[in-house]
Every structure is written in C-alpha cells, then in structure tokens.
C-alpha cells in the first residue's frame, strides 16, 4: 500500500520547495548558464567587452591532443578510483557484517576517514609517498630510483588513485553495511541449511539483494571521481608531472582560474558536464535494468 500525503493548500508545496530551488538555482543553474554563455564568447578576465566566437572554443578544444589525453587520464582515474574504493568497501562491509562483538567500534573507526577533508588527506598522503623521506622511500633504498612521482607519470597517477580511493572507501562502506544489514537473515540462513557455502550465498542471495545499493554507489562514485578528484590533485600533483594527472576538472581550474582563460575553461566545463550527464544516463539505461528493487 502506498501512503499519500495530500496538501490542502495548493501554494504550500511550492513554498516548501522554494528554498531548495533557490539554492540550486543560485549555485548551479545560474553559474551553469553563465558558463554556457561564456563558452561561445571570449570573456576577458577583468570583464568588459566579450566577443561572440560561436563554436571556436569547442573547435580549439577538440583539436587539442592534450585535451584528449586529459580525458583519457580522467577515465583511468575514474575507473580505478571507483573500482578500488567500491571493491574494498564491499569487502570491509562483508567482514564487519559478520562481526559479532565490538561492531560499533569497527563501524565507527571505519567511518572516520570520511570526515577528513580531501586536501588534508592529500597532505598526509604526500608525506607517505614522498620519494626522499616518505614511507615509500624504502622502495628506493632497495631499488634506487624505482619510485619517483615527481617525474614518472604512472607513479603519480597511482599515488592520487590510492589517495582518492582511501577517501571514498568509508562513504561506500557505510552504504554497503546498511545494505547488508537490511538483508533478512532468514534468506541467508535458509541457504546455509541447504548447504550453500559463504561464496555461493553471497553470489546468489546477498549480492542480488544488495544490487540497488551497488548501483546507487556506482553512479555516485563515477560522478564523484570526475568532479571530486580536484582536492587531492591540487595538493598532491597539480596535474603533473608533465600533465600525467591533469584530469578534466583540474584542467578546468588550471586554465580558467590560474591561466585566466575564462571562455576556454567554460567550454571545458560544458563538455565535462555533458559527459557526466551522458555517463549517468548510460548507467541508468543499461545497468539499472538488471537491478532488482525490493517491493
């Protein structure tokens, strides 16, 4: 049975959603509209006359090999961050779900990293990964020169992926744990009585029941890794070395705010936004079909 709440006053519902709409308008629609407009002009940093250049900004963007490189880097970063953070979070959640004593302690401790701001986490990881004095310095003691995120692009990428994953594991963990605990014990116990081992129980019962949570987290993680990698990258690599960690969102910041090319960076924002919308659409269209939502 579906419960419906009816408002007598026709105006009241609109009034109630007004603050939310206003906030979204001021902080999302208005700037987005402005970025869209700028992407068709050449906007001078200090304001003043902006020339209309049509699709020139986009044309320049799509003819730049560095832009495709940055898009490729973003995909690598998004894939591995999502994969590692969701995979480890699921594993941790399964373990914690089976813990009988001290559950609250484990749960609390595992949630803490979520409260750490990205730049703060990045500073901590920077110390860990520093080739000279950090924790990873021991690698260089054994094999001199094997670890150098200052120069070697792959090392720098690995470093930011680890830092970004670490940051979002906890968020995923909370959702997975809640999802696991919502699965009725009777299903699992019945399967156990029928002789299904833990892996079989997970594959045939637990995971299908967990799939709505999984899908939700997938959408959130992919979207996040496209946009939220900024804090980590800004502190740890600033897109370097040699542009090896220059993900699209960092490039937007770098070109627009540091380089003062407001229009070029607006065009990039428009492309990135379209990309994220398209990806989310694909996820809903293709993956959600296979999701089973409990009635």
């Amino acid at each position, binding site marked *: 049975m579906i419960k419906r709440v009816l408002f007598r006053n026709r105006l009241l519902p609109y009034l109630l959603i007004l603050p939310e709409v206003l906030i979204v308008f001021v902080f999302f629609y208005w700037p987005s509209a402005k970025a869209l407009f700028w992407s068709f002009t050449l906007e001078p940093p200090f304001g003043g006359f902006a020339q209309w250049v049509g699709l020139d900004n986009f044309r320049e963007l799509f003819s730049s090999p560095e832009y495709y490189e940055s898009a490729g880097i973003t995909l690598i970063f998004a894939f591995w961050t999502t994969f590692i953070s969701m995979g480890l979070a699921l594993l941790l959640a399964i373990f914690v779900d089976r813990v009988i004593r001290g559950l609250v302690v484990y749960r609390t401790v595992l949630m803490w990293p979520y409260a750490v701001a990205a730049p703060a986490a990045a500073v901590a990881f920077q110390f860990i990964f520093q080739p000279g004095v950090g924790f990873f310095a021991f690698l260089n003691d054994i094999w001199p020169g094997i670890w150098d995120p*200052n120069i070697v692009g792959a090392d720098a990428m690995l470093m930011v992926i680890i830092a970004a994953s670490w940051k979002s594991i906890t968020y995923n963990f909370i959702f997975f744990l809640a999802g696991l605990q919502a699965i009725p014990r009777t299903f699992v116990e019945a399967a156990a009585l029928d002789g299904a081992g833990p892996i079989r129980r997970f594959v045939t019962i637990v995971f299908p029941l967990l799939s709505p949570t999984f899908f939700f987290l997938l959408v959130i993680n992919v979207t996040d890794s496209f946009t939220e990698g900024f804090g980590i990258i800004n502190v740890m690599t600033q897109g370097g070395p040699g542009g090896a960690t220059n993900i699209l969102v960092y490039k937007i910041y770098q070109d627009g705010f540091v380089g003062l090319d407001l229009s070029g960076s607006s065009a990039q924002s428009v492309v990135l936004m379209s990309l994220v919308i398209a990806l989310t659409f694909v996820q809903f269209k293709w993956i959600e079909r296979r999701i089973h939502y409990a009635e």
Partner: protein
Amino acid sequence: MERKTLTAAAVLGLLAVGLAMPVEAKTEINLWYGLKGYLGKQVMKVCERFNAAQDEYEIVCTGKGNYDQALQAGIAAYRAKKHPHILQGVETATATLMLSGAIYPAHQLMADAGYDVDWSDYIGSIMSYYASSDGKLYSFPFNSSTPVMYYNIDMYEKAGISGPAETWEQFEENLRTLKASGVACPIAFSTYLWVHLEQFSYMHGEPISTRNNGFDGLDAELVFNQTSYVKHVERLKRWYDEKLGSYAKELFGVGTRESFATGKCGHYFGSIASHGTVLKSAKMKWNVAPLPHNEGVTPNNTVVGGASFWIMKGFDEADYKGVAAFFDFIRSVESQEFWSTVTGYVPTTRSGYDALVAKGFYKQEQYAGREVAIESLARTPPTPLSRGLRLGYFRQIKKIIGDELEQMLAGKKTAQEALDNAVKRGNEQLRRFEKQYQGQSLP
C-alpha cells in the same frame, strides 16, 4: 527666550562640529597582496610604517594567499565592483593587467596627484619590466629580485673546487667533481623557467619570442626552440640522468631551497629574496654568485622577477591622493632600506641602493652577497632582449613548458621534441590572447 535657545543651539552645534573635526575618519586605502609567511608579515610592517608616518590616510593591507590567488581575488572583486585600490600583481601577469582596462597607470596617478617624480631614480632593468614601450611606469615595482646561484663552500673545500663557476660548462664539471668527492646531491634543481629559460635567454641576448619578447606587439611568436636554450635543456637532462642532483619540486614539501639550506645539496638556483631565509637555517659556510653563462659569451644583465603594485580604477580623486601618498612613501629612501633589509629583495631605486651602500650594508657579514643580485641586474644596460617579457597568458605558457620538460626528463621526449611542442602549444595561447584583445595594443 526662543532666540536665546536658538543661539545656544547654534553655538553648541558649532562646538560639536569643531570637536568632531580632529576625529574625522581617515581616508581608507585598501591593498591586497600575494605574499605569505615571513614575507607577508613584512608587507604588513611596510603598511604599518606608512600609517605611522602620516595621519591623513589609513592603509588596510590584506593577504590574499599566493600570487595566483591574489590575482584571482582581485579579478573576482573587480567584476563585483568590490575591488581594492591597490593590487599586487605577479610579473607574469603584466600583459594581462596592462590590457585589462581596470588599471590606472602609475605615472598618470603621480602626475594627477601633483607629485613630481624623478623616474630616472628607478633602477633601469627593474623599471623597464613594468613600463610602457615609451618608458612610462604602469605599476610600481615593489618586491623585486633576481636569481643567483647559492653554493656550499664546505663542499667546495672538501672537493678542492676553488670557487663558483662562471660558465655552465665549468659548472657541470664542478657538479661531477662534487659527486666524485662523495657528495650525494651536488645540486637540488628543477626546470625552474625563471632561471633556466628567462634569465638564460636574457643573459645570452637570445629571444624567447619574436617582436622583442613581446614588447613590440601582441603578434609575437615563441622561438626558444631555436636558440641555445635547447642545449641548456639537454644539460638539465644530463644532470638528471647522471644523478648529479635531486629533482625537487616545491610541491613535494622539500623544494630546492630547503634541500640546499639543510646542507643536503651543494647548489641551488633561486631568488636573492631567499637570502634571509637560507641565512636563518643554514649551518654550513655558503655564499651566492651570479648565474653562470655559456663559454665564450659576454653576458647581459639579468631581469627582475617578483611583483608590483597596480592601481585599480573606480575610486575618487581624494582616495587616489592617498594612494599616491603611499607610493611616494614606498619609494622613499627609508622605506626602500627597510624593505630590502628585512627581506633580501633588491632596492628598486638608485637612491635606496646608494643609501644601503653608504651604510656599509653589503659589507655586514649577514648581508654579504646580496649585492650580487643588483650587480647582475645592472651588469649591462637592458637591451631589447633583456628588458623582460610581455607575453599574454604567460602564466599558462610557463605551465605548458614545464609540463613538456618534465616529459623530457621522464624520457618520453627529446629536448628538441619537448621544446617544439611547447612552442606550438604556447603559440596557441598567444594567438588566443591576441584574439581576446583584438584591436588593442600594449602601451
């Protein structure tokens, strides 16, 4: 009765006006700067000294993070019409600021406010960076420095090196000698473009771009992939490959300066403004020397870096009188002396420099070596190729060159390939800038 009251009220009123006069609010002048830490504190002291020196104006100085952040803040504020009177602008933003339409030129401000400034008192190579092509100052140079070579004397003595190298060829030999004598890190270095591209090109009289490094027009094109800079970049790659030093980025916490100052590395190239900072932490014997040059070349002057103060449009005449008074104060001998003493930046006026010399400043042990900077700035009169740079989006171009050079160090590209690509990408930026300011020209 009524009349009496009125008179009394009038008298009281007059008294009130009379009493209010002395406590009338001072004209407030706002200044935003982009220096942090110790240097930021010294900017605050300069402001306090101005406030103490007169009682008509009150300057309120606010730190806005680093240079980039200060410029971003200034731009955002200008667009919202909440900008300060004075904005500190990094040298690489000179072209952008000159064409921004948001600037009240420095020479005009002083003329309008009735000051008769002896512009020739400003040191030529400092002035030329911030002046129009006909020599009129657009922004007031404030923190000006030039890079020098810092070297560890203890390590030199141990390895038997007699003194700092004058040429890059000798310098590289010295690095090898140090390495052979057991020094693990003869130099802490990076691709530091201010030293290795800009000063290198100025000193050798080679162009970074056509049109006299951009001074003659917005249609300049980068050409540093055709000069001896290519050979110099190959030299950096050799240092990296032969492990003659450690590649240290500021980003990783331990930059080149820290690596030198802690006694770990034998050399580093850096701004003379760091002289005071190194002095505070260094436990070894060290000194500074001019930047080396290629064999068989008589070097030109080096050029300033740092930042200058830009006056922003949109205030009334009374405010600008205060702004002018502030700049008149900044260029005074006492203020120049104060700023150079506490920081290590060079004085921007000849009179300031002469006063320091007369006081025997450069003879004092803790300041010895700082004269190297001003000597290299004044080595020759600035030529069209050693006046500085006036390229649009130069901040971004530097980032591009840096990226390409890092790819070269990682072995993905040769020096020539990296620089060719840097020139190609950099020229795209220049063309974008030219299109942005179509129909306008640099002053």
